[in-house]
């Protein structure tokens, strides 16, 4: 078993690396479709040609494409992710590390929000199938899946910040405060709207999935057997049905990271949060392509790693999974 598991992990890791190389190649090719000479654009049209030449040399843009391709990847592994054209030639890695705390904070709380609301809602809906509770839960989750999250953010701002005046529409908290001890919890209030905005879509899809899985599991013979044995309904649902229903739901929660990143781009724009998503969309608009490359690869890496972890967790919690 152990040997088998190790093989499986190594194989998955290799696949992940190959996928990441594919991601890098696509991003690299796309960035070279953005001509318009970013160096000239960042230095202004009247810049001295000699200065531009030096600048290009600094960014390594005077090399042939294939050299750049391998240079970038070898530098990337060593933590040198290139320089930003726009942000006063700051190293992209530092730029990302500056922005990361806010996005990570937002994302972490959004996932906590999603799990904390979706699991009770999903269980309640399946437990009381075809009742008003179920109907409401299904309705809420369908709305949550279909609501554009930036619009939800705007509506929340209008209600809670403009009309009621409870919070400021723009959460102004620095990255260090967010991850310090009292700050981690006291920053919740200014960030609440953004967290709900980002978490709603995830909450809705997890609720939907959990409800369906619970209903599916409840139809199985072993659940009937447990009931026949005289176990309390509570124990049947929470101990046996939920554990089996959670297996596919774990995958879905892992996959939420994809939605999380996409949602963060929009949520940060709505709330004016200076996070990674905002950095990314600004870089795309301004064609700051070292930043685009760095962030995209970082996002893809996060997704691939999370998928890998989900696979492993899946293997741990479901003994039926075959290792291939």
């Amino acid at each position, binding site marked *: 078993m152990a040997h088998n598991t190790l093989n499986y992990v190594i194989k998955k890791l290799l*696949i992940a690396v*190959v*996928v*990441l190389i*594919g*991601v890098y190649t*696509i*991003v690299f090719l*796309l*960035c070279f*479709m*953005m*001509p*318009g000479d970013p160096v000239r654009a960042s230095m202004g049209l009247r810049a001295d040609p000699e200065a531009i030449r030096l600048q290009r040399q600094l960014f390594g843009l005077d090399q042939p494409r294939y050299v750049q391709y391998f240079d970038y990847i070898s530098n990337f592994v060593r933590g040198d992710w290139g320089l930003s054209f726009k942000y006063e030639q700051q190293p992209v890695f530092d730029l990302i590390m500056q922005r990361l705390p806010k996005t990570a904070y937002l994302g972490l709380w959004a996932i906590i929000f999603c799990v904390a609301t979706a699991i009770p809602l999903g269980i309640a809906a399946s437990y009381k199938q075809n009742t008003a509770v179920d109907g409401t839960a*299904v*309705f809420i989750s*369908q*709305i949550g*899946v*279909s*609501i*554009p999250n*930036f*619009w939800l953010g*705007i*509506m929340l*701002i*209008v209600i809670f910040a*403009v*009309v009621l005046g409870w919070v400021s*529409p723009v959460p102004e908290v620095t990255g260090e405060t967010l991850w310090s001890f009292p700050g981690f919890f006291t920053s919740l209030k200014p960030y609440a709207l953004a967290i709900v905005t980002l978490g709603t879509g995830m909450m809705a899809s997890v609720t939907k999935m959990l409800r369906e899985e619970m209903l*599916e599991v409840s139809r199985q013979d072993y659940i009937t057997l447990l009931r026949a044995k005289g176990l309390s309904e509570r124990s049947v649902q929470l101990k046996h049905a939920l554990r089996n229903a959670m297996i596919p739901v774990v995958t879905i929660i892992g996959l939420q*990271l*994809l*939605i*999380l*990143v*996409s949602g963060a*781009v*929009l949520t940060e*724009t709505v709330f004016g949060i200076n996070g990674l998503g905002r950095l*990314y*969309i600004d870089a*795309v*608009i301004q*064609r700051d392509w070292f930043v*685009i490359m760095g*962030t*995209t690869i970082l*996002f*893809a890496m996060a*997704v*691939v790693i999370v998928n890998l972890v989900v696979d492993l967790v899946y293997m741990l919690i479901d003994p039926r999974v075959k290792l291939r």
Partner: protein
Amino acid sequence: MLPEEERMYELEKRKRRRANLKISLHFAVGAALLVLLKIFLVNRETIPQWGPRLLALGGYLALWYLLSEFLYREWARTNYPDKLNPVKRFVDRFYKNKLATFGLFLVLTIAMIAIFADDIAIYPYEYDAAWQEFSELPPAIEHPFGTLASGEDLFSRVVYGARISLYLGVGVTLISSLIGLLMGVTAGYYGKTVDRSLHYINDVVMAFPFLVLVLVLVGALRANESLNNAFALIAVVMGLDVRLTVAFFVLALVNWTALFRVVRSKVLSLRELGYVEAARSCGAKPRTLIFRHLIPNSIPPVIIIATLAVGSVILTEAGLSYLGMGAELGTPSWGRLLSDAEGYVSQIRYFPLVFFPGLAILLTVFGFTTMGDGLRDAIDPRMKT
């Protein structure tokens, strides 16, 4: 079969064919009359007022409904004398799901709004400089949702937005479904290296968060001068603006992954079934196998996923336009209307400007998701999407 029986069967068949021909004829005549009615009676020129125009439109749609209902009954009566009608069985199952029925109603309504946008909207699509004096008015009878900073009537803009959203949603989904279907069938049928390489492409595309991939693609395509000129030409043909055309193709290019995975696994399971095996051993060519057996049998999941995908494409387009990477200024895309209204968020007086475009997105996407889920429950409740 006895000769007597065979004769009866032939007679029955001929009778049915004649009845079906009659039904088609009825439809053709009815449709032609209704189209003439629309052209001559229900339009902006003949009825300038907005209220009567809506009433006439309602009556016109009711006539269409009656015609199609009547013809469907005729068709079911001649072709399915007993309870064998598969359409009826499916429809019954679908209508039992209240949320799905509501979704279907929403989708049909939005489709009607998109088709008859010219008659429903109060003001024409083209911008009129004279509107400038009506800038930023609150809601009133002449402007049910108020007006934009440019003086355009928000209600009319939202109505025209239905056209853009549905055009993009349905168009993108058709193209990407075709890509996903073909790739899935190819991977499932040929297996081995073909399967592995297609699956690798799928894995790479799936490694990107969707919006991130779309954004970088749109950014890259838009920065390229020569490609942009090509897109400008295509945009004229498609009747969209250049940036939306770019978004259209990008979305069509990356939205196939869900379909690819479902079709591939479906084909893998179909391949092992007896009748496919039998057809193969009878010497059926790959082409026959794929187009006769594999594709038709993987259509139901394709329909379900495509319906759900329309909603997600509309959402993504709205997000892109909101971020300024989608529709251009002046194109009444709902996302664009929302991003234009961003400056009014803090003024409660202008609430309609930020409320109604978003509500339109929500209702449309809600319609497609609930309808898709209902379709799934009616066709195959066990399918995972």
